[in-house]
Every structure is written in structure tokens, then in C-alpha cells.
């Protein structure tokens, strides 16, 4: 019997949801486990870095890496995985675009350290202790990874072959991706493995989306009673559907919640947030500055709204601060 193709899973700066989504394959996980050899999956099986180092270069068919890159250790692991794998797949919003962790790029590392280790109301730290990358303990030199100045996407530190979008990707997308890998019919490098059209095109409420939207207010979803049959944008709720790639089968919409953009943009859009801002603002009703500003007050946090999953991959990538 020929050897089964080898697959790996790894996590970096992530919440664990992407790992859950692998288990969400349910019965299909048996199909996957039958067809491939999982040679590396720290969250579920006991693997150490040394095990991976011992593998031959290029011996893993594909490794799915989830999570953003924030520490020197994640960077090293990404590079190691790149060497050992023929194909590297950025799995989920964080590896793909920085994800929610990359909203930290609105603050400098110093600001984050000051808050987390000093100013936060729940912290007691009279000695002003800070994490250090190396410390002498008895006769040992104990080391910790360094926290980098920036949260990065996976493709900002290593070359990435494919992207599986979503927070997290759906089991269907993962299953399709595994089948594609096994078929050997690989799409062009750099492909996002999800349909290249806007979510609105696949949304069940599409027909109720008016062509002439005109916003006088925006509402947060908990603050209004939402009609579960009508387009959410038409009800004044910021739905990222027009600026977001399809493929999730409009999960949030079917729960009567607006899309918050986790699949990222289509291939025709470079900056998802700017695109959404553009489309939303064009359709504001007033024409004078004060009137426009009054409507826009309903969007108190534009960065967090339009770049919720992708500040790291946006054109500006971060807040420009004096201290990096």
C-alpha cells in the first residue's frame, strides 16, 4: 500500500476556534483520518518541535496554520513548517488577515505592556515586573519568546500557498480543501479557497436589498428589532456582506446577525475596510457636513467595525505611533 499523504495542523496567535472547526468535521473526520496521516497537531496529539525538526524537508504534503504571528517563537515555527511542508495553508481569519488579534496593531507594544502589566485595574505589580526574554534562575538561563512590535499575517513572515478564510473556516470549506489537495488538481498559488464573489450574492435576503439605500441612522443589532426576512443593510444595520467574500453560506445572516467580515475581501478588493467604508458612506442620506457627521456618529469605532478581522492585512497595517 502506498504511503498516505502527510498533513499537519499548527496554531499561533489564535483562540482555539480554528482547532474546534477541524473537530466540527464530525463524521467526515474519519474520512480525512482514513485518507491522510496526521503527522503534527499539537492541540490534539503529543508532538514536540523536535519531532518536526526530525522530519525530512518537504515531507509533509500540507500544513494548515491558524493564528496570527505575534511572537518570535511563532515566527520560527512558521519557518520550520514552511521547510517541512510542500504546501502551507493559512487557516482562518488570523493567519489569513491578522484576525481579531491584529486589532492590537492600534497600540504600540509599549502601550500594551504598560496596560497589561501595570495600568489594568485588576493588576497589582508594585515591583513593575515585565516579561523578559531571558532570566537567570538558580544556575539556569530561562528564556521566553519575544513579543514582536507588530501582529502579522502568516504571509507577512513566510510564503503561503493557499488561504482558507473564516473565523473559523466552515467544515465544508475544510473538507473541500482536503479533497482538492488529495485530488492533486491544485489551484494557482495564492488562491483563497472560497468562491470569489460577494457574500450578498449568496445571501438568502439578497432580493430584499434595495439598489438605492439611503441611511439616516445606523443601528447596532441588539438595539433594534430586526425583521428576519429583510436585508440587514436595508434595516440600517452595518452588514459587511457587500465587501466580504462568499463561502460561509451566510451563517451570521441566518442567525439574524449582520456579517462582520470574517471571510475577507474578494480578489478585486485590496482593502476590505476602505471598500466597506466607501460603499456605506456613499449611501448616507444627508448632503451637508453636519448632517453627514450626525449619521456617522452611529459608527463610533470605524477601525474595529471595518477591519475587525484584517487590520494586519490592510493597506496601513497599524496605527502610526511615535514608539513604533
Amino acid at each position: 500500500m502506498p504511503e498516505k499523504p502527510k498533513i499537519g495542523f499548527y496554531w499561533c496567535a489564535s483562540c482555539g476556534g480554528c482547532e474546534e472547526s477541524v473537530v466540527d468535521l464530525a463524521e467526515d473526520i474519519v474520512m480525512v483520518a482514513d485518507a491522510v496521516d496526521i503527522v503534527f497537531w499539537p492541540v490534539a496529539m503529543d508532538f514536540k518541535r523536535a519531532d518536526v525538526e526530525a522530519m525530512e524537508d518537504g515531507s509533509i504534503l500540507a500544513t494548515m496554520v491558524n493564528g496570527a504571528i505575534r511572537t518570535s517563537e511563532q515566527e520560527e515555527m512558521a519557518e520550520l513548517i514552511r521547510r517541512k511542508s510542500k504546501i502551507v495553508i493559512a487557516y482562518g481569519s488570523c493567519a489569513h488577515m491578522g484576525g481579531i488579534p491584529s486589532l492590537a496593531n492600534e497600540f504600540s507594544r509599549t502601550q500594551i505592556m504598560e496596560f497589561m502589566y501595570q495600568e489594568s485595574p485588576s493588576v497589582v505589580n508594585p515591583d513593575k515586573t515585565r516579561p523578559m526574554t531571558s532570566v537567570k534562575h538558580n544556575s539556569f538561563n530561562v528564556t521566553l519568546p519575544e513579543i514582536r512590535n507588530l501582529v502579522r499575517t502568516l504571509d507577512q513572515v513566510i510564503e503561503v500557498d493557499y488561504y482558507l478564510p473564516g473565523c473559523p473556516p466552515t467544515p465544508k470549506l475544510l473538507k473541500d480543501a482536503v479533497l482538492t489537495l488529495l485530488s492533486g488538481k491544485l489551484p494557482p498559488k495564492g488562491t483563497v479557497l472560497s468562491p470569489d464573489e460577494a457574500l450578498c450574492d449568496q445571501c438568502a435576503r439578497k432580493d430584499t436589498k434595495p439598489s438605492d439605500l439611503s441611511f439616516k441612522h445606523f443601528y447596532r443589532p441588539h438595539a433594534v428589532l430586526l425583521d428576519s426576512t429583510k436585508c440587514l443593510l436595508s434595516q440600517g444595520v452595518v452588514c459587511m456582506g457587500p465587501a466580504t467574500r462568499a463561502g460561509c453560506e451566510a451563517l451570521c445572516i441566518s442567525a439574524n446577525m449582520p456579517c462582520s467580515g470574517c471571510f475577507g475581501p474578494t480578489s478585486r478588493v485590496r482593502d476590505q475596510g476602505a471598500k466597506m467604508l466607501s460603499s456605506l458612506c456613499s449611501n448616507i442620506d444627508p448632503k451637508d457636513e453636519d448632517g453627514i457627521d450626525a449619521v456617522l456618529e452611529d459608527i463610533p469605532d470605524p477601525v474595529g467595525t471595518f477591519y475587525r478581522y484584517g487590520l494586519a492585512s490592510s493597506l496601513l497595517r497599524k496605527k502610526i505611533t511615535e514608539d513604533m
Partner: protein
Amino acid sequence: MPEKNIKSNYEPKIVAFFCNWCTYTAADLAGVSRLKYAPNVRVIRIMCSGRVDPQFILQAFASGADGVLIGGCHPGDCHYAEGNYKMLRRFRLLKRMLKDLGIADERLRLEWISASEGEKVKLVINEMVEQVKALGPLAIPQHLKNINEELKHFPGEEIREEEMAHA
């Protein structure tokens, strides 16, 4: 940020998106009338201020612009009826968002300048160049390059350099 150590010979780069029907013509008129204005502006002609996708503005900053100026027809005068209102609405939110991302207010400006207002082109450009000069360089490509020095190796470097070359 290099904003602190402003070199005395620092000349800001400003990318300007001018509407073909008004501000672009006005800039032409300023030229023909031999009005002198600061040479820091790179003008891109567009068919309507409403064509300025916020992505263009972010791309300009990301590629090294110190400021972005948009010129369109006065309210009511847009050749495509509503283009300038669309721009104004995007501008209002974009300004707030840029502030949240550390980009000073003076670096993005929107002006209505009709085809006959050559003098206004001169005033606006000179004023903006002075204001941006006072702020110092924004230099986002350099800023990111400095941060990326912490990476062991950086595969995106060549792409970035290429993007910078287009600046």
C-alpha cells in the same frame, strides 16, 4: 516615527486627485496664468471626485505620500450629479478613521475648486504644503521597514520595495 527630527530641507510629497471638470482645469489655468505654487504636488486626473476610492487614498499614504488632496466641483455642480456628495461622505468618516490610525487631520484635505478658481488652487496647495511640512514626514514605508527589521527574514521585502519604487 521620524516626525521629530524634521530635516530643514524636507519637502513633503502630496498626492492630489483632481476632478477633470473643475479642479484639474483650474490647476491648468493656474499654470497658464503663471501663478506660482509649491512643486510638491503630484496630480492625478480623475473624471469626478466621486471616483476617488478610499483605497486610493490609503494606497497613497502606504506608498509614502505625506498628504493627500482631493479637488472636486462645488456642491450642485458635479457633472455626475452626486459624485462630490459621495466623496464628502466618505471623506468625513475616512478622516475620523485615519485619526484613529495616527494620521493627522491636515494630511487629508478635500476642497471644492471650480474651473475658474486658479487662484484657489494656488492658495490651497501652498497652505497644505506648509501645514504638512510643519508635521514632518509621514514616511509609512520607512516606518514599516524599521519595524520589519525585527523579523529574521522578510519574504515580502521585495514586494514592498517595488511598491515604494512606485511612490
